[in-house]
């Protein structure tokens, strides 16, 4: 098994052994997405108007709840030191950890968000675009969360600060993601924002792990 697979499989296994914790961010997302219709007047036209923005913001917020599973738990039990010392390059380890983390935290959102969108009176025809936009945004979001998690490793309680670090950086994702969703809703061409999301994903995945690996090293010193 390649080094990438070794780390990837191990992180997946650890995540699924604590499967109940995987559910918390998803339940958080559903609760937040349900609160808006309660707070706003629930006319169908208004719901559809705010729906796009609410769903994207709620998805980003809920992805922050799972941040401790990325590096914090490994740092607390000494595993991160061993990963750093092992002959496997840390950049590769980070890439594998991000992939496993995205698979268990972000992929469920890619499924859950379009389902929730139905309750915002979004037409079925717009849902594939929404799911695709989320799928393309996921790698970048994962890398951003990884940067936040790595930079706050040396802090005792990093969780809340990660949000302050990461959320402002999700601006472009939010803009292109909601734009693609809105264009999809109106039945127009969504190629431009989706391609921009894809370009951001390529950039994030190619440069992110290098930066995160360096930040983890500094964070453990």
């Amino acid at each position, binding site marked *: *098994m390649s*080094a990438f697979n*070794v*780390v990837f499989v*191990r992180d997946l*296994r*650890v995540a699924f*052994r*604590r499967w109940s914790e995987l559910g918390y961010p998803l339940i958080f997302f559903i609760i937040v997405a349900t609160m808006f219709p309660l707070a706003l007047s629930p006319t169908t036209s208004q719901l559809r108007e705010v729906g796009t923005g609410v769903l994207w913001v709620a998805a980003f917020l809920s992805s922050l709840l799972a941040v401790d599973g990325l590096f914090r738990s490994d740092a*607390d*039990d*000494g*595993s991160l*030191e*061993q*990963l*750093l*010392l*092992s*002959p*496997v*390059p840390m950049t590769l380890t980070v890439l594998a950890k991000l992939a496993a983390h995205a698979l268990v935290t972000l992929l469920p959102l890619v499924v859950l968000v379009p389902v929730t969108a139905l309750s915002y009176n979004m037409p079925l025809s717009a849902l594939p675009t929404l799911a695709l936009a989320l799928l393309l945004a996921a790698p970048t979001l994962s890398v951003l969360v990884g940067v936040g998690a790595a930079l706050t490793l040396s802090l005792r309680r990093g969780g809340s600060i990660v949000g302050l670090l990461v959320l402002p950086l999700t601006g472009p994702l939010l803009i292109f993601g909601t734009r693609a969703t809105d264009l999809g809703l109106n039945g127009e061409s969504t190629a431009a924002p989706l391609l921009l999301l894809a370009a951001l994903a390529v950039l994030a995945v190619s440069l992110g792990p290098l930066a995160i690996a360096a930040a983890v090293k500094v964070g*453990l*010193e």
Partner: protein
Amino acid sequence: MFEQLHFDLGPTQLALLVGPNGSGKTTLLRILAGLAPPTSGSATWKDVPISELVAEDRAEVAYRGHFEALKRDLTVVENLEFHMALWGREAAFDGVLAELKLNKVAHMRARYLSAGQRRRVALAMLQLSGATLWLMDEPTTNLDSEGRALLVEWTHRHLAAGGLAVVATHQPDEFATSGALMIEL
């Protein structure tokens, strides 16, 4: 924390780091492992600074700190398998588990192990790492007398096979070998 410190270690040699709490034993071990850079000076393995080692040389250095690096939700065997795969080693570890009296808990999740048993698994990882240089930070913590004896025996066996070891300890007598290098911090 400490200055004017210089020592060389060759095959079959053991160095014991002793000193009161807070004197820098852990810091020195972390510098030797390459986890922290020294403020000044350098730590080298085979004349190469520890932070610039290539993967094969990197794998010759094993560090065991205060934490056992066990995933609580994985079984003992899964933890060992992951650890060995990470280091690119393949070896049967039934014998090692038997010696450590861990057979009965081999398929239990690490969270159900006692502190002493977890420490024993950490020892198994060290033994199975195949590393030449063992860096151990107070390895006898939580171990019973039998476990401590086994640790000392393994260390001596490792040295006899041409290995090196640096051990931070408050009980240097336990490791007493005539040739041990005592480093007082």
